[in-house]
């Protein structure tokens, strides 16, 4: 479904991504992990068109999408959330999510968009906050709203950037379950960047480890967590599964 081929991204002298390749199958949940500054968010930005890579290509369903502008990538069916949530502060939660439905892949009419938005808000359990201005939400609610907003664009592929960071363990587990359900019940394909190992390892079909801008390891969660290279990269941090 998605193929990233030998992507190189530099910032001045710093090489953020060094010939990274990645393939993704339909209806898969890929966990993307790696220490701080390993290039996870950069990779997201390359896939979703925020950065144009210096080298390499990105294909989506066989079609090249390298360097397409972000809003066109959304129209292809790829949506994302941001590491630090970016709500449209002075729009209501409903309008936030509706905007995605109206401008996203389906280009829904206002009334359709309203329905789609309410559905997804219900899914993330934010329905009762629909008429609140987004800037009044707390961090958890912001993250959930962003998830609903990304979903409302009607994506097949969803990129989630540290969705559960900052949540307490019980909230985290709930959100993780929601994400898994998206794959299982709605047939979405998801790449999930996470710092919290427990969350990633528990739900991912496959894990991809980035280290200093390059692939370190790839495979099933169990295998990867035992990989000595990975353990070393995390400075001997024991990885719990």
């Amino acid at each position, binding site marked *: 479904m998605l193929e990233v081929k030998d992507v190189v991204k530099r910032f001045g002298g710093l090489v953020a991504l060094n010939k990274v390749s990645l393939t993704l199958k339909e209806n898969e949940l890929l966990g993307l992990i790696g220490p701080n500054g390993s290039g996870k968010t950069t990779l997201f930005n390359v896939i979703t068109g925020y950065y144009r890579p210096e080298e390499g290509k990105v294909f989506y369903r066989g079609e090249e999408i390298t360097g397409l502008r972000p809003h066109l990538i959304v129209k292809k069916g790829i949506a994302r959330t941001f590491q630090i949530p970016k709500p*449209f502060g002075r729009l209501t939660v409903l309008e936030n999510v509706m905007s995605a439905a109206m401008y996203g892949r389906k280009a829904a009419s*206002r009334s359709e968009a309203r329905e789609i938005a309410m559905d997804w808000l219900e899914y993330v359990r934010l329905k009762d906050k629909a008429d609140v201005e987004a800037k009044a939400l707390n961090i958890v609610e912001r993250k959930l709203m962003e998830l609903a907003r990304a979903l409302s664009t009607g994506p097949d592929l969803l990129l989630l950037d540290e969705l559960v960071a900052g949540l307490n363990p019980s909230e985290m587990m709930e959100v993780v379950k929601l994400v898994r359900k998206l794959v299982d019940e709605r047939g979405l394909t998801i790449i999930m960047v996470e710092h919290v190992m427990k969350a990633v390892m528990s739900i991912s079909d496959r894990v991809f480890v980035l280290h200093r801008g390059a692939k370190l390891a790839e495979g099933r969660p169990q295998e990867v967590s035992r990989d000595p290279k990975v353990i070393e990269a995390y400075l001997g941090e024991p990885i719990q599964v």
Partner: protein
Amino acid sequence: MEFKLAWKWVVIAILLILALIFPLFADEFLVSILMQAYLWAFLAMSWDVIGGYGGQFSLGHAAFIALGAYTSTILLESYGVSPWIGMWAAGLVAGAAGALVGVASLRLRGPFFALGTIAFAELVKLLLLYFKGITGGPLGILITKSGPEYMLFESQAHYYYLMFALMIAGLLFLKWFEASKFGIGLVAIREDEEAAEGVGINVYRTKVIGAAISAFLTGIGGTIYAQWIHFIRPDIIVKLEYSTQIAAIDVVGGAGTPYGGLIGALILVPLSLYLNAIFGGMIAGLSLILYGVVLLVVVVMVPGGIYGLVRRKWLSRKKGGE
């Protein structure tokens, strides 16, 4: 709830009727003041599209007034085209110029954009002066025709109704615009450009079209202004003072809301004209000081403008009551 809703409509109806019968019992001076308040309200609402909803602080809107005024006036005086038609051409010319400003807004932010628009307005003024053959250069153009078919009226009351209709049209447009797909997209860009791209909004196109809409409306306002004042000249119409007054009115009233322009204009325009009438013959300049003080006080103490303040008060009272 329904009871409250009914009250709202009653209040609106009463205000409408009061506004409509106002010229019947008020003298021409008051009519003239209120009429100008409506015109400025419309201009501020036009500005609001880019300045309020779009979050791009333009200080060059006088250029669009001028482009609109010149387009329709040249059509009228040289080709005999009635401004009822000419105003649409005026809007288009101004809108095209607005699109250029929109392109600039892709690269310039905050004060840089503001300065860029000031320079743009100055350039428009100089070009109007320079192309004497078409615009009459520094001598300007005097509207010599007359008759309602040319949007020229004998009494101020007629202009009052014209401007009132214009203001109401602007208000309804903004009400619709605010909830429209395009309006939400524009606000989304204002709030967070990257996130807006992330939900599929074409930032470039939206910004450019937003600026063009704002300029289009301002251009129409320019036509109406020219029809009322009957005389246009580059240096008296492309004034930085006008650009800043438009922005000031909207911000004082509450930028990014449909009512901001009207509220701001109803406060600032009568204030400056009425104070000038009172003090102008005695202490010239005093009215401007008070104007400046009001501007300062509102911007510092009432962020979000008067409308924002009223709404907050109202919301908190409602919450308290429940």
